[in-house]
């Protein structure tokens, strides 16, 4: 590719959201000089600038910040450390040889990178993916897109809303749209329990008298050109609609908050192994993927619920990338972790023993007063009691080096008693 602008670089950080920013800052602090953040929006901060509600930063900054304020702290640091970044720039492809091809109004660039940190974030599940029957009118929006339009672009998506999915995004947007004068007629949730945090049920639904229809889903969208109504139905234990329970709700907007999917198209182009359950890369405890020198963090690795943990994870990735680039990475033997009973997934997938370690996991069902145990075969290595566990809340467990000394395997389970 002779006419294409190309150069060598130590580190490319793909994505300038909370993960990318924190990773770049950490890599710079660890000594990487030649790095670049590539961001496809025309702003830094990723999803945060549109998350105008508060609740961010409780862990790292010990105060409750709004999304934009949290992002600004990292943006200020990036600027202070003079970390180069490009906005309106999208990585089109990453080769297995770590060539990063970037398209931007300034030109097409190829960076021959020593290390790459994948921080692309995630996308929303769409109507098409859950195959909601009915017409295909205007007025069907995923909650994140509606949030962008309402909070960043100054467009009001509708007046009479039905929300499908009681995850935090759906709840936050219920409140947001209600405050802006719309009426949210119902939030339907297919599970028998809400998927968002209880405090959001209080401050987004109960506060505004919005009915929450558990074990319900949208079974039809009506309206030839613009949404005119949705039909919601109750579902059984197998999530199949129960005949005769259909309820037609006239509305002009359907908001979908039906799940987030880690974005990994680029991971595929460079041959990074992906895990089917998380949708993200298979990683070691230093967040290196199956390709040497490529690291992953943030929502592209696993969908997070607390941005503070994204930043901490990204910091780790930045450190590891720096280690790699500066030739300090040591070859280490690792064992594979396993998600046992009641655990949906555990990260990282490969760990080194005899070193302090943090495990991240999600459970399959909600529970109260449960023990989560870490096992080496039949032997219990550690257990911890949790007052409340919920699939919507990521769980962290720390293990000391001494606790993983010479273990042959590591399996995490929810204990029966």
């Amino acid at each position, binding site marked *: 590719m002779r*006419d294409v602008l190309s150069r060598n670089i130590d580190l490319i950080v793909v994505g300038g959201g909370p993960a990318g920013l924190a990773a770049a800052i950490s890599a710079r602090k660890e000594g990487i000089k030649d790095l670049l953040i590539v961001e496809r929006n025309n702003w830094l901060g990723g999803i945060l600038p549109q998350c105008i509600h508060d609740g961010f930063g409780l862990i790292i900054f010990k105060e409750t910040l709004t999304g934009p304020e949290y992002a600004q702290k990292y943006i200020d640091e990036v600027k202070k450390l003079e970390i180069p970044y490009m906005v309106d720039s999208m990585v089109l492809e990453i080769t297995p040889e770590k060539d990063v091809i970037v*398209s931007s109004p*300034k030109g097409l660039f190829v960076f021959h990178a020593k290390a790459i940190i994948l921080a692309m974030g995630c996308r929303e599940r769409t109507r*098409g993916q859950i*195959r909601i029957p*009915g017409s*295909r009118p205007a007025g069907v929006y995923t909650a994140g897109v509606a949030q962008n339009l309402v909070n960043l672009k100054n467009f009001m998506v509708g007046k009479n809303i039905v929300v499908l999915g009681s995850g935090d995004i759906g709840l936050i947007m219920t409140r947001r749209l209600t405050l802006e*004068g719309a009426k949210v007629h119902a939030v339907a949730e297919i599970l028998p329990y809400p998927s968002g945090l209880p405090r959001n049920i209080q401050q987004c639904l109960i506060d505004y008298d919005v009915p929450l229809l558990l074990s319900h889903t949208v079974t039809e969208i009506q309206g030839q*050109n613009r949404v005119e109504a949705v039909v919601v139905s109750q579902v059984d234990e197998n999530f199949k609609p129960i005949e005769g329970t259909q309820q037609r709700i006239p509305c002009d907007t359907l908001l979908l908050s039906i799940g987030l999917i880690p974005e990994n198209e680029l991971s595929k182009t460079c041959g990074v192994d992906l895990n089917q359950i998380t949708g993200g890369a298979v990683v070691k405890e230093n967040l290196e993927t199956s390709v040497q020198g490529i690291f992953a963090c943030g929502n592209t690795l696993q969908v997070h619920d607390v941005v503070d943990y994204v930043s901490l994870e990204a910091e780790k990735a930045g450190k590891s990338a720096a280690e790699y680039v500066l030739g300090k990475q040591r070859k280490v033997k690792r064992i594979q972790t396993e998600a046992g009973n009641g655990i949906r997934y555990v990260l990282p997938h490969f760990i080194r023993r005899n070193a302090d370690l943090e495990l991240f996991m999600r459970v399959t069902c909600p529970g109260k007063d449960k023990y989560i145990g870490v096992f080496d075969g039949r032997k219990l290595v550690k257990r911890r009691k949790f007052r409340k566990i919920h699939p919507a809340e990521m769980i962290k467990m720390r293990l000391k080096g001494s606790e993983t000394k010479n273990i042959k395997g590591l399996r995490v389970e929810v204990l029966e008693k």
Partner: protein
Amino acid sequence: MVGCALAREFSKFELKTVLVEKEGDVCCGVSKANSGVLHTGLYYKKGSLKARLCVEGRLMFKKLVKELDVSCTLCGKHVVARTEEEIKDLERLRDVGEANGVRGLTIISRDLAKKREPNVDSLGALYSPVAGIVSPYLFTIALAENASSNGVNVYLNTKVVGIKQVNEGFRVTTTQGDFHADIVINSAGLYADRIASMVGIDQYQLYPCRGEYLVLDKDSRGLISGMVYPVPPKVAGVLGVHLTPTIDGNMLIGPSAEFIDVREDTRTTEEKILELMTEAKDLLPSISLKAVIYAFSGVRSKITPPGEKEARDFIIQEDLAGFINLIGIESPGLTSSPAIAKLVVQMVKEKRDIRQKKDFNPIGRKTVRFHETPREKQSSLVNEDPAYGEMVCRCEHVTKREVLDALNNPFGAKTIAAVKYRTRAGMGRCHGGFCLPKIVEILEKEYGMAAEEMTLKNTDSPLFIGRTKDLRKKGA
């Protein structure tokens, strides 16, 4: 599609030609909601218009797609037999095809079929090498835009509400005013019977028949090499679902076939979605239904009543002097479209003296598809025009320049759909998650559109109710 093919064909002559369309863009009906297949002519009765025009049309496609700069691939088709009885059906199909002039049809063994389509189990297959795929909407839009550049006036949002025979022709009354026409070609598809009856031609009855489809993620494209069709089923309740690769790299499952009451009913239904999924998995066990990214449907204009066994032929006739009806143009409508257009022009030529233009330009506007351009060329495109460097659709890698070019179409269509069908923005796995806010911003900043003017597909499909503060401001 047929209307746009006709417009282009007529634009080769010294005639004042006008194309009227009731929707907000061309190609809004079933022309965009079909399999995009170039048929070989396997299924049609020898001597029928369908058989003749399908074969003729297919042969015209090679040159036509080159002129119009539209991609077309001969990906081939395997009709697979899964029972011994079905092997006999393959032989029957081959014979019909050969009698219709289709060449290259071969029945292949189970082993060879497995080699060709490793993910499909069969006892044997009928292989048709010349079956092809094309983008039905890119093709239709290209036909219309070339017709327009050759002098055809395209009137959108123009619905015909009455036609009266007058001296020397017809007065066509529309929602945007009256036209006087010497010749009227009725290619109104789903509404062709109603248009015909406006001039007293009452013998036609159309039976709308909906076909639902599922679209699979491009990741699934590799599961089949060409089209995979089961033997047409003889039992009721079985769709005989086709697996069709698309020219852009997705896979289509479908269509279903269901007679419906309301012609506009392009809903997708729980029932059909399930049937499509089940039959697809039956044909191709390694299909993951997690790969479904979209479901859509189109409504066929059938003249064959439900229950009638043999499909009726196309009706292309001048039922009234100067009034040519095209009724029941369903499959193989796409393949036949260039030949249909030629036939209709021939019909007009026979009765009137029409002169060929010397300056007809068959070459359509060259469209750049950044995603399909080699990297060096991409680089020079961006250097010449920075709008090529900004990605609007991240799933399909559609650039800002392509979006602007789409919005600058000669018909003035500035809807999300106008962008979608010209550029593919919004057709990827995130289905507008990234590109919609960007396209909206382009409509606002580059075209000065107000919030209420932004629509999905026509003036009745607004995206917004206004600005964020509108419901709260005084006087709201």
